[in-house]
């Protein structure tokens, strides 16, 4: 059941503040699209417009090519999972899950059967008769997911569904959610401010900032080829260096503050910004590197160590293995992985 959702120039303002500027995207059918951005970036407003909970000031939402912009939320058949669960406190777990079927006039026996099947999918059939106030936060979120899935929605929309949970629980539920959504092959839109969640769950990633799309693509594309400095630094850590591309002796060269290297193919001449990820820099024996840096601080992250170095006035962040932690003041020779350098598009 591959449902195609498209957004065309969706726009929403609150007074003089524009929350979303001309949001256009074709959401991959049967896939999970993660919308990622800091708070206030317009991601939840965009989701609410797609869900029909907020009416846009302009633009359109298309479902399999049909304009549904003015269709009320209750007629869209979209499943929604909220950050705060929004479960009905006066109903039991099973009655909550049955709600979408009940309002569609499905008989008691059939809706109980389907509710139990949905509760099986989220591994909590044993909680069916409990009251909502008697179950934990993680269990409540499972109920919310079962409730949104029980009536076989055309599209599943999730608004920061895990952010109210603690880190350990979030990690477990994230993996389970990913497995379930992939099994169901539902077209899903997943709004989050958590980079790991977005990259691990999303087949596609949309990065938003200030109400606009900064970049859209697969997580790997967006991570390795960020379109803007914001995307580079928002999605993981990044060293951003000022560079200059030029032609010399028929060869394209890239001049960085501390070294000159062959420019990656397709680089235009002129000033540019270069991104290099901390994990794409290695410590090498002196003489074999691109630059020297003095360790100014180090952060132990468990599986690795993040070093901050001063390389001739330029701050560099480098991730190294946790085997030995260089003390502050030590001079290290660093080598950039030239194949992983990313020249950010000009004007970005």
């Amino acid at each position, binding site marked *: 059941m591959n449902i195609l959702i498209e957004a065309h120039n969706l726009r929403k303002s609150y007074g003089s503040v524009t929350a979303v500027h001309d949001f256009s995207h074709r959401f991959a059918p049967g896939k999970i699209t993660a919308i990622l951005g800091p708070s206030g970036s317009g991601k939840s407003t965009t989701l609410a417009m797609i869900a029909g909970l907020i009416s846009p000031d302009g633009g359109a939402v298309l479902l399999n090519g049909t304009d549904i912009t003015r269709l009320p939320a209750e007629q869209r058949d979209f499943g929604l999972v909220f950050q705060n669960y929004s479960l009905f406190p006066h109903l039991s777990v099973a009655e909550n899950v049955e709600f979408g079927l009940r*309002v569609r006039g499905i008989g008691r026996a059939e809706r109980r059967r389907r509710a139990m099947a949905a509760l099986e999918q989220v591994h909590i059939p044993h909680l069916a008769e409990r009251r909502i106030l008697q179950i934990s936060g993680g269990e409540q979120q499972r109920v919310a997911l079962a409730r949104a899935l029980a009536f076989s929605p055309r599209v599943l929309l999730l608004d920061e569904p895990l952010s109210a949970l603690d880190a350990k629980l979030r990690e477990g539920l994230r993996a389970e959610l990913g497995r379930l959504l992939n099994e169901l092959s539902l077209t899903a839109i997943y709004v989050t401010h958590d980079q790991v969640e977005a990259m691990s769950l999303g087949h596609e990633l949309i990065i938003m900032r200030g109400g606009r799309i900064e970049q859209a693509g697969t997580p790997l594309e967006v991570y390795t080829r960020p379109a803007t400095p914001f995307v580079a630094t928002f999605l993981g850590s990044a060293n951003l260096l000022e560079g200059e591309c030029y032609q010399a002796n028929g060869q394209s060269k890239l001049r960085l503050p501390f070294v000159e290297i062959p420019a990656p193919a397709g680089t235009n001449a002129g000033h540019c910004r270069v991104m290099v990820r901390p994990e794409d820099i290695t410590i090498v024996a002196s003489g074999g590197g691109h630059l020297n840096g003095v360790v100014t601080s180090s952060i132990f992250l468990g599986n690795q160590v993040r070093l901050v170095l001063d390389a001739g006035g330029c701050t560099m962040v480098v991730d190294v293995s946790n085997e030995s932690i260089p003390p502050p003041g030590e001079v290290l020779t660093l080598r950039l992985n030239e194949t992983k350098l990313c020249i950010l598009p000009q004007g970005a």
Partner: protein
Amino acid sequence: MPRNIGFIFCLAVTIALMAMILLPLIVVVLGSCINASLLGLSTDLWSGSRHDIFDFSAFGYIFENYGDWALFSLELAIACVAICLLIAVPAGYALARHPFPGSGLVEELVLLPLSLPGITLSMGLLATYGELRGPLLVLAGHLLYTIPFMLKVVTATLRSFDVGRLETAAKSLGASFPQRLFLVVLPNLRHAMMVGSLLVFAVSWGEFNVSFLLNRGRPQTFPAVLYDTYTNQSIQISSAATTIFLAIVIPAVIAIQWLGGRDSVEVEQGA
């Protein structure tokens, strides 16, 4: 132990206060059914043996002479409950869910009658709707006093569990407005409506000033029985009237306390 002294002191103050509140009630209840002649008081009702301790004839007298007054009061209180449910619940929902510029002022204005003396309110109603003087105007006066209670309980409850959030969830699950109302909003307002109804009933049952001033002729409301018996009848008859009055209002007040307690526990757990 200073802590024990503090506890004993608090207990003593509580017992003293309870005694202060309960003693007059106990005296009234006993006064309604103790053989007055044994206390050396005169009684014109007594039909039993002079040596019996209990004498319930005053109750019979009240039912016989003021039964229609009690009935009128009960009808009035029940009408108030019904009208408040029909008016104040939707109004409270509208104010809590869709506030508009000035809606806070509207909420405050609805509370205004509670701070006005009954005579002021009655004179205002008589000056404006004098030709309606009688049961209808009494009902209007009671509504001015009771709607604020229902409205306040409903708006406070709706705000405490963020009904908008639940309605959005119901909407996303395909519920139409009537379905959201009957399957989500009203079930979550059940307690509030019960507490509000009992409050309205108790306030209406006990209202005297407005009823007395706005009514024309008989029957009057039940608190007027108290006025009538205390001013014109023996202490036993007026005590019997008071006992009947309390027998209706005290269970309502206890139920309000009980339901109110349950309500706050559920809201706390839900938060």
